[in-house]
């Protein structure tokens, strides 16, 4: 993938050729272009032009893109790459500071890393993070320069595992489309009938409450559950407030590394190409972001470990039954059905500030079914892929007056109350201790006992269960692993 535009006729050939060159560049350490020697203290030697990604990527092209994305994910960025944001805050919309900072890193307000891997590495690259790698999430508008761990200023969060993230995003896209279609159908029906129409919102077996549409088009959203009123399923971050890997990657690159993607922080939306004032214009191109997205989107789905120990196998089998019997599966659904594995980039539901489908001549698209791990996913008799995420991509109240450990935060995030979180996917949970959104539960038993609010009944059932049932449940959860 090279700079500059190319004719459509030779695009395919040039893209493969370009890809090969880029691979050579990244792996041999040989500088392709520019004046920087191979030992130069920078990670990004060349930016990817998004137009070279447009259309359907072949298996080889996808592989190359993923390798570049992996390089960006593991690279140790420097100020030569634009690491640091002396004049910008961590906010997800471009927000300037009044006074510059004096240091590239700040443990609390950020930037707090020089590479993505430093937080996403348990059990392997792309996984979750330990308590040591917790991030302090704040909006970045007022009090953006906090230097305290006081929860009045930030929400302390563990890093989630990215394995299976591509499937999660594809599920979210399909669910959003289905919910909006249900809404639009109700709008049309109400206009036609002249009567209010109430529609129960449900997709892939997950209920999101209901909405009522008046004949004139006014909508009553008071019956919605677990989703934003624009009916976009936002499956990323602990609270489920970000719609796409692309949006999240741009947020994180700015917040944690101070590397600003031009599609949000560039001239079009800020008037300048060096918004963070570090003398590095256009730090991350749309093509670079696509590479980072591709790396994450193609991380395999976590799987199941078959223990060598026969006793464990037996306990796990029984534990899976207990999981359902106690009601855990009501939210931690073992499977959600996915209709297709084609990943398009940009995503369909992002808003201005993240590259949108309508902003490119053709989106890039790649078929996750090209990947061996995706081919091995189970399917139902309708041909749908059964994504074994043990989640529902829905937000729930998870604390109440009596059991409140998961209601520890003081700050709401993006209109979502402080004690509401998205159901954590349990695939891979056996590999990603510690647990909880703050990474402060060392055992699965502990975090289960902290469930409350909408999960209180299941939690009580767990507490009241026989010790052996609880143990078997743990045995089962421990088989849900990220395979090396």
């Amino acid at each position, binding site marked *: 993938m090279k700079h500059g535009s190319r004719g459509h006729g030779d695009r395919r050939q040039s893209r493969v050729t370009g890809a090969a060159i880029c691979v050579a560049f990244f792996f041999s350490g040989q500088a392709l272009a520019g004046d920087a020697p191979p030992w130069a203290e920078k990670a990004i030697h060349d930016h990817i032009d998004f137009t070279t990604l447009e259309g359907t990527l072949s298996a080889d092209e996808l592989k190359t893109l993923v390798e570049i994305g992996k390089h960006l994910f593991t690279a140790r960025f420097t100020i030569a790459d634009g690491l640091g944001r002396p004049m910008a805050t961590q906010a997800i919309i471009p927000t300037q500071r009044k006074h510059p900072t004096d240091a590239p890193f700040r443990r609390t307000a950020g930037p707090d890393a020089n590479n993505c891997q430093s937080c996403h590495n348990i059990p392997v690259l792309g996984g979750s993070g330990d308590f040591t790698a917790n991030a302090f999430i704040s909006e970045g508008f007022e009090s953006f320069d906090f230097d305290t761990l006081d929860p009045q200023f930030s929400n302390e969060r563990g890093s989630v595992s990215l394995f299976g993230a591509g499937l999660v995003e594809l599920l979210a896209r399909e669910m959003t489309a289905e919910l909006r279609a249900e809404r639009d159908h109700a*709008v049309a029906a109400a206009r036609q009938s002249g009567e209010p129409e109430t529609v129960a919102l449900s997709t892939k077996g997950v209920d999101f409450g209901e909405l009522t549409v008046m004949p004139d088009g006014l909508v009553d959203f008071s019956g919605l559950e677990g989703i934003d009123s624009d009916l976009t399923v936002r499956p990323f971050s602990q609270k489920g407030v970000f719609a796409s890997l692309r949006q999240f990657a741009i947020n994180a690159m700015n917040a944690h590394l101070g590397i600003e993607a031009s599609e949000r922080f560039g001239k*079009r939306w800020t008037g300048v190409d060096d918004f963070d004032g570090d003398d590095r214009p256009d730090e991350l191109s749309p093509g670079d972001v696509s590479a980072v997205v591709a790396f994450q989107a193609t991380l395999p789905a976590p799987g199941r470990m078959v223990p060598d120990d026969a006793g464990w196998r037996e306990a796990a089998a029984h534990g899976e039954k207990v999981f359902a019997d106690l009601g855990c599966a009501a939210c931690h659904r073992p499977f959600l059905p996915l209709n297709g594995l084609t990943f398009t980039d940009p995503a369909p539901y992002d808003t*201005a500030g993240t590259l949108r489908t309508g902003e490119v*001549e053709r989106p890039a698209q790649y078929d996750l079914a090209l990947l061996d791990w995706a081919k091995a996913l189970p399917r139902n008799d309708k041909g749908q892929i059964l994504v074994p995420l043990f989640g529902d991509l829905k937000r729930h109240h998870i604390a109440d007056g009596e059991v409140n450990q998961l209601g520890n935060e003081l700050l709401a995030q993006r209109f979502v109350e402080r004690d509401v979180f998205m159901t954590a996917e349990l695939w891979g949970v056996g590999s990603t201790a510690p647990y909880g959104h703050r990474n402060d539960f060392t055992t699965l038993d502990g975090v289960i006992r902290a469930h409350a609010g909408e999960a209180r009944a299941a939690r009580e059932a767990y507490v009241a269960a026989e010790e052996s049932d609880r143990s078997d449940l743990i045995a089962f959860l421990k088989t849900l692993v990220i395979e090396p």
Partner: protein
Amino acid sequence: MSARALFLGVLVSGLGAAAVHADDARPVPNDIPDMHEEALAAGIDHKYSGPWEFFVGGGVAAFDCNGDRLPDLFLAGGTNPAELYRNESETGGGLRFEKVSMGIPDEDLSRVLGAYPLDIDDDGLMDLVVLRLGRNLILKGKPDCQFDVANSAFAFDGGKDWTTAFSATWEKGLPFPTLAVGNYVDRMAPGSPWGTCAANYLFRPHPGDKPNYEDPTALQPSYCSLSMLFTDWNQSGVASLRVTNDRQYYRGGEEQMWHVDPGKPPRLYTAAEGWRHLSIYGMGIAQADLFGNGYPVYALTSMGDTKLQQLDEESDTDRPVYDDIAYPLGVTAARPYTGDDVRPSTGWHSQFADVNNDGLLDLFISKGNVEAMPDFAADDPDNLLIGQWDKTFIEAGKPAGIALMRRGRGAALVDLNLDGMLDLVVVNREAPVSLFRNRGAKRSFGDIPLGNWLEVELLQPTLNRNAVGARISVKTGNHTMDRTVTVGGGHASGQAGFIHVGLGTAERAEIRVRWPDGEWSHSYRVFANNFVRIERGKPDAEYWLPPPPAETKPGEATQ
């Protein structure tokens, strides 16, 4: 020195004479809307015509007359009949209008210069105040775009004057709106037209359960007004009446602002109070809170320089001392920005709006020779000045596609196809109406979507149901964008309906409303790219969903 004075000083010295000019060649970093003219294709074939009396005027009223929330268009015609076009556009699609009969006598639709929509009797149906050469009309709205002439019913004396301006406000303690009518030259007075300006009038409603506008008050002296605007210029909670006057015909006149205090006779702001003498060919008034400090700035069109009036920061905020900042901000728009005609421009309608949804206000000015004035540009395209982050503006009329060499008069920036992007309708003298659909930002392969947006509708359960005078404050991060609901201003042109706000890259926003009586609402949390209704007293904002387009593209057509 105040921060703002310092900022402006730096701007002037930094920009010098190079960048801020009609020939400003600065590139526009933010989106320029791709405005596609499609009046005929949309079914609008209309012209504003007539002799001397119709050199001025030529307004449009954009409002919903049939309850579907699509803005319909009432177009002044001059000696041609005024016409009402019902909006039949598909959501997000091409513009489509159908001419409809209003159910009022043809005679009343002749000699119309402009119109302003407002719900005078708070019955939920928009009424229309029609400005004419001769008897002005109050048209009481009925369902399905039908109207009744309500002059008798409302005891409104339409007069016989050459009416060119209008504004309205709801005064505290009065059951219906106070109307201000601006008149131009008294053609019958001896020595006309020089120094013979007809009186303007203030119509205050009498107590009662229906509008009664008997016994208006003359606003003297009057100076051939072409635009008026009730405006709370100093955050006092009481609107004053700003009047822009045409020095072509007055003698000894100037720009004016009237105290219109509840229960008291109107009186002019005086020099002793700080009102500075300003004499221009005043054609249009636009207001906006450009600096986010609650104090509006005013764009006054004229022949030659447009004025941008900002409250002087060195003075007490209760003193209406205004400085002109048009030059440092790049909005003088003094001559055509394209073509070979280098003579001074003639400006008419002015309007602040966010045409590219980047969160910054832009400024539209319609332009065109009065008729054949030899000292002024004959080829004089309308301006579209794109707001920048440093508070300056850069001209983009030509790349936007609106640089038609027509004589623009009244206009409206309004979302006609409910896609969140502001479209543009311009009434032209002796030329077809221009109807521009905003298709997004142009790229080599087509148009791409603009920034995020919101459109807000307010409702009060009491009188003044549409909350005229309310301030809508939209907060995204550390950035706040304010809009005020007004009736008046522009050039003979008014709008009612959703108030548009661009949000740039913000995915969500918090809205607060300062209702006309001064009470602030709590914060309403809303997601971007939605039509929002805020009803006073309700805990949450409601969304309104337009009819889905006929062909829904996956992941695209719905919001």
